[in-house]
């Protein structure tokens, strides 16, 4: 159904935009949803990124078209720590400050990454995971300790926060494409940046950017905001809840004699 919708949208988009002066091949892209609400029963979300390639002339001969889609979550400063064996126990010893690392980063491609993207283009547009993470802000300190940065990438990949899925973008007739990006359950609030790259011969031909808003909603938002904006009242409220529960249980159970 969504694919069909994408197809119709894409077909409409094609003639409409044809008049404007544009590169020989350009992307028209859309998202299945532009906002995600984290509610109490939130268990991850799947965002469909779809679109089409518009062109004025026939499909150029030679190397086929490739699509690379990236989704990047909000960045935050981090500290990566290493445990060492000291005094017979394992304890946190060395630490490296990372000025900023994205909380989520996914790459989806229509062909093996090495084929779809050349190293220079990766460097310029900061597309692959290590490039994107390093680009955002690695301190000099972290630059000298690659093991810590590797550990960051490894742990986040294991948590499903940094994902590389090659060949997961379906590209039809070198014109229509779609892919599904799964957002994990442990999602950080903020604006998620979606980038779609069109490449040929490993070179970026065109790119578009979209954004997804990820926000806590309902009860989640209420708890989170009150904990941060009214910490004292929130603390007292959690005490009252605890007191009522403790008292309620003892009253309830003294009624049922068993």
């Amino acid at each position, binding site marked *: 159904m969504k694919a069909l919708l994408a197809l119709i949208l894409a077909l409409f988009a094609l003639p409409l935009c044809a008049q404007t002066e544009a590169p020989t091949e350009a992307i028209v892209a859309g998202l299945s949803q532009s906002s995600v609400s984290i509610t109490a029963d939130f268990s991850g979300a799947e965002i469909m990124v779809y679109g089409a390639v518009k062109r004025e002339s026939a499909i150029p001969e030679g190397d086929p078209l490739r699509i690379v889609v990236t989704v990047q979550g909000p960045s935050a400063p981090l500290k990566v720590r290493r445990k060492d064996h000291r005094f017979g126990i394992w304890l946190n010893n060395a630490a490296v400050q990372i000025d900023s690392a994205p909380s989520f980063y996914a790459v989806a491609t229509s062909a093996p990454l090495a084929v779809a993207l050349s190293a220079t283009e990766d460097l310029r547009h900061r597309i692959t995971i290590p490039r994107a993470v390093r680009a955002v802000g690695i301190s000099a300190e972290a630059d000298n300790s690659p093991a810590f940065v590797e550990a960051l990438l490894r742990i986040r990949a294991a948590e499903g926060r940094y994902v590389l899925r090659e060949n997961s973008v379906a590209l039809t007739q070198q014109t229509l494409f779609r892919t599904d990006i799964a957002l994990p359950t442990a999602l950080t609030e903020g604006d998620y940046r979606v980038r779609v790259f069109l490449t040929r011969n490993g070179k970026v031909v065109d790119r578009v950017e979209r954004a997804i808003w990820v926000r806590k909603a309902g009860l989640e938002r209420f*708890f989170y905001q009150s904990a941060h904006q009214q910490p004292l009242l929130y603390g007292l409220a959690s005490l009252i809840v605890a007191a009522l529960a403790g008292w309620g249980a003892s009253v309830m159970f003294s009624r049922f004699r068993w």
Partner: protein
Amino acid sequence: MQLFLPIAEVSVNAFLLIGIGGVVGFLSGLFGVGGGFLITPLLFFIGVPPAVAVATGANQVVASSISGVLAQLKRKAVDFRMGLVLLAGGMAGSALGIWVFRVLSAAGQVDLFVQLSYVVFLGLVGLLMLQESLRAMLRARKPGAQVRRAHVHTWVHKMPFKMKFRASGLYISVLPPMMVGAFVGFLSAVMGVGGGFIMVPAMIYLLGMPTKVVIGTSLFQIIFTTAFTTVMHAVSSQTVDMMLALLLILGGVIGAQIGAKVGVKLRADQMRVMLALLVLAVCGRVALDLVLAPDELYSIAPGSLP
């Protein structure tokens, strides 16, 4: 049913949380302890961040202690005056503990400190309790053996600022109970526990209080220490997760009431041996994590902007 926790920012099974609350509540009702020393490590284990586990654990202990103290109140087994003296010390200890917790969080050593506290205090108390209860069991088998004196005068009784504690039948200085209170308040802030497992033996052996008022009085003061700790954590680091606490409390208060009913049917010395073994088991589990090589040497913590 998966539930996303707003402060901990992890998704966990709601029934698992109610279950954990229930089992811990059952044990706490059975043995007359708050159960914080079980719930906090269990929360670590299911992936709740340590800072949230400690703060929310304290909130859960408030509920189970209130439930417990109400039961003790019916038996007139609460020494309010002693409770208030312990509390005065407890507040000071708790404030200090919160400060230490923040400093250690910043230095990345809070996990280690919490784990070491667990190993040292649970190990110590577990061993003492095991030794004492096994001896009591042996004594019970040999009738005619020497009976322990109810009241022994120690250095504790020579200190100034004496006060009468009628419910406990004591006339002692307020300093030792204040120190005990401060120490337990400190532990409560750092370990997310009520500290009943330290408080109860300290009251019996150090202060010489009669056993019948010990549990009620300890619970009474634990309510306020943990309440203070909860609010302090909420204000200083926003780590109290109300949704997590609600589920734990729901399971906990029901479990505690069932545990208390079952507890009446068990023999006191057997129960103490079981509690001692439980405490030692938790201690061993935490110690193992420190000694065994971890699978992943690196860990990620939120950092601060330079």
